[in-house]
């Protein structure tokens, strides 16, 4: 893969055949994906769902010592308001002195729509550079400047001469794609073009060679892996994966979320790039392979013990550490079994419906099956090839419902009403609607909880037990606050509004 000289990455519906609208079973959706016939469908009724601009911010807003300039009308990127506190506290888990979330909006108005927004962008870049002295200024470009044809790359090229900060444009106009996960490619595209580069090391300027030191560095690099984290992960998740990889003798560097500029420079001093989530990383690691010849692993997500073991073995294989890994996995699995005993009697046979990103819902289902729960439905934000390896961890799900829908709570509500699960596991953003069915709800992810690795299995188990032991809050909401859908909706097929054509 090499799109690095293009202005923008291709859209995922083109590159990967990603689909956002499908109703059927797991078997059917997997089959449709293999036959590449998912990507054209859409809906005659749809609900607001997020776009590649807002999703880009989920990565951009985590970067340390950086300022974001939202290039667009005043509302673009306003969602950052909601993460102003959490962004700061999560950054400080990595660096106690990290600053808070700072962003500017170029505030394009009626005049700019006609005459262009480049001058305002320049003013904003100069102000950000002088006022905040960040290492990096990221510039996500929204629909309006994309449509009026602002040449952001040219502005950046011009101003890069005078700013101390590295300027990173991110082309992520929301209207360009139906698959908002294209956002990850947009951000990585900017990072690859502007931030990944060979570090300048003092050692490289040595007059006399120091062979021993060179060997030490080579050895260290040969044992270092870049693990690509995602914004929805917690610090506890990172510590758990680091613990496991350290246990088989590897060093870990986390990228890209919550990283500073220097982390991307050292990214090239590593033996392997490891993805945690295929949906998130393929664009980056494929490019790191084609541009810098760093091998990679992209397979499953380490959620659930089978997925975690599979993930570890894929990494171990590269370093010929399978034996050590087998020992580790065996010990971890045994201890986890003991720890989970207390929850099994309570959760055995309970049913669950999971909604959210395709990778996480399928992987989290492994934890639930491990606990003796029964999976009766999925709703995935989109569908593409990256869910395939994760399915290997599940048993008997061929006939389980799989709805491909980015958010779209109306379909979820219909399905949940039919399927009557005991637990709903859901993506953030639809709480007020989900609550009105009175079920206990486990957030599918949360950057302050542990979900990954062995400790993640335990933590999810104990939270489900806790949540299911008292669902009064949602029950009372359901008793008093009606859902907005007409009674006739519940009699209709949940996939009534899916159209085969775009």
């Amino acid at each position, binding site marked *: 893969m090499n799109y690095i000289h293009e202005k923008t990455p291709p859209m995922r519906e083109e590159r990967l055949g990603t689909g956002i609208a499908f109703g059927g079973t797991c078997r059917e959706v997997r089959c449709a994906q293999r036959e590449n016939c998912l990507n054209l469908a859409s809906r005659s*009724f749809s609900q*607001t769902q997020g776009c590649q601009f807002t999703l880009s911010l989920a990565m951009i807003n985590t970067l340390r010592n950086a300022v974001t300039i939202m290039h667009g009308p*005043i509302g673009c990127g306003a969602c*950052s*308001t909601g993460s102003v506190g959490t962004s700061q506290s999560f950054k400080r888990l990595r660096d106690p002195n990290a600053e808070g979330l700072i962003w500017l909006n170029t505030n394009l108005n009626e005049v700019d729509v006609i005459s262009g927004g480049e001058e305002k962008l320049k003013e904003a870049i100069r102000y950000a550079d002088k006022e905040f002295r960040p290492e990096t200024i990221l510039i996500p470009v929204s629909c309006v400047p994309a449509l009026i044809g602002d040449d952001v790359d040219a502005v950046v090229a011009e101003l890069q001469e005078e700013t101390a900060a590295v300027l990173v444009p991110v082309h992520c106009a*929301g209207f360009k794609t*139906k698959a908002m996960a294209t956002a990850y490619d947009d951000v990585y595209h900017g990072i690859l073009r502007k931030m990944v580069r060979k570090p300048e090391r003092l050692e490289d300027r040595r007059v006399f060679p120091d062979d021993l030191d060179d060997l030490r560095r080579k050895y260290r690099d040969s044992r270092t892996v870049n693990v690509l984290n995602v914004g929805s992960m917690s610090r506890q998740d990172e510590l758990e994966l680091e613990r496991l990889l350290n246990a088989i003798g590897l060093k870990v560097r986390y990228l890209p979320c919550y990283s500073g500029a220097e982390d991307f420079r050292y990214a090239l001093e590593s033996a392997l790039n490891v993805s945690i989530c295929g949906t998130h990383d393929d664009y980056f690691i494929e490019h790191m392979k084609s541009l810098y010849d760093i091998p990679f692993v992209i397979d499953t997500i380490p959620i659930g013990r089978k997925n975690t073991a599979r993930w570890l073995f894929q990494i171990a294989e590269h370093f010929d550490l399978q034996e050590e890994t087998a020992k580790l996995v065996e010990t971890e699995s045994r201890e986890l079994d003991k720890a989970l005993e207390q929850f099994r009697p309570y959760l055995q046979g309970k049913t669950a419906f999971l909604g959210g990103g395709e990778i996480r819902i399928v992987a989290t289902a492994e934890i639930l099956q491990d606990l003796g729960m029964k999976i009766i439905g999925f709703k995935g934000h989109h569908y593409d090839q990256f869910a395939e390896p994760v399915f290997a961890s599940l048993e008997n799900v061929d006939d389980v419902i799989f709805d491909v829908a980015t958010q779209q709570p109306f379909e979820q509500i219909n399905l949940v009403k039919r399927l009557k699960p005991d637990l709903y596991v859901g993506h953030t953003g639809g709480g007020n609607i989900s609550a009105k069915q009175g079920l206990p709800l486990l957030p599918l992810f949360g950057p302050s909880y542990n979900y990954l690795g062995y400790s993640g299995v335990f933590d999810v188990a104990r939270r489900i037990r806790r949540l299911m032991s008292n669902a009064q809050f949602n029950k009372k909401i359901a008793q008093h606050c009606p859902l*907005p859908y007409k009674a006739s909706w519940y009699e209709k097929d949940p996939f009534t509004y899916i159209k085969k054509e775009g």
Partner: protein
Amino acid sequence: MSSSKFVDRPRFHCALGGALFTLRALQKAIPIIHASAGCGHNLFSASNAGAGYLGGGYCGGTAWSSTNVVEREIVFGGEERLNEQIRTTLDLIDGDLFVVVTGCMVEMIGDDVRAVASGFADSEVPVIAVPTPSFKGNSYDGYDMLLSGLFRDYVTQGLKKRADTVNLLGSVPGQDAFYKGNLTEISRLLQRIGFRVNTFFGEGETLDNLQKASEASLTIVLSDVYGLKAAAVCEEVHGIPYISLPLPVGAAQTSEFLRAAAVALKADATTVERVIREEEARYYDYFERIADIYNDVDLQRYAIVAGDANYAPAVSRFLADELGWLPRLAVITDLLEEERIPVLQQRFTGWESDTYPLVKFDTDTSAIQRYLAEAWEPNHNERYADTFSPTVLIGSVFERDLAAKLGIPLLTLSFPVTNRIVLNQTYAGYNGGLGLTADLLTTLVAGR
């Protein structure tokens, strides 16, 4: 908009967002968003958290109906897609009013949303369209655009005027976290002096209040900025005059407000004076409680106030005239039309305490710190320095870093208020003055 430059951490979003949260505040009014897929979700995330976790309510957040236009519609036009979305929304959603609102892209390509909506004139529930292009205004403007649209196309025309009915505007849902508490309090007081009040968003109100808004004989705009345009449209379409009075915070301002409203409403002066007497007595019964602690440990403070055009003047004056504090800097953080600035400056005159802050108009969060040196001569390392201390900062959550840097307490009340849960609290009226006093002094006794 006068100031057309970038904004450092804007304390507002766009017209579409303002319109969406105004609809969110109306009972069973359902927006149909004609925009890109991310607009609704983005704006929900902003005002949900920013307005103290307002939530999506009946049919908001990811439940908002939205056409989610993509490149194909931008190239070929989005009217057909909108037509389909209105039809399916009417199919699915149980609402009493459907309002098409728009994002930038469909406005730039020139979709005629009013024409599309008019195709549904025969539907059981009304479907109207209110264009809300976000390059033409921010969320405060979106409130005005939406209400203007409703006054034109939804409010019944030609109803008989009632002398005892008044409309109340100026508190913007989704921007003012306390809008419902504030409207409820002011409405309570106007009811006490004998009036029926339509706030449209208040406790127990329905779309009926809006539809019959043309019965009112006066509109009171509780703001020097927000709601004025909507009130002017209401006057033009329904012949209802309007007056603008500042949002009153605390006993002194509220009594003043009631007297001014009473004159405009031709209310019975004896009743008004009796109500003021009773309310002030009740207020000071509570207020008196802090007379001990205030004086025992010296709770007078300097203050820095950063807030929108409603809160910054009202809170500053409350601090000076009732709490006996010394506001030294007030920053009004809105994007304002030039002509509003002298009106707002006027609010910082004629105070009983005769102590005034330096008043600045600036939308940039980073600017506030720069004004401190102007508001108070910095200590140049003198041995004996009269420092700017003790001080309390009243603003938004964007002031958290500044408060931490200065080592002073912060009370957040102006957008965004992501560090508080806001339900039925109010900062307006008599009850609002008590609430503000309690919240402010709580920051000072929290360690006791």
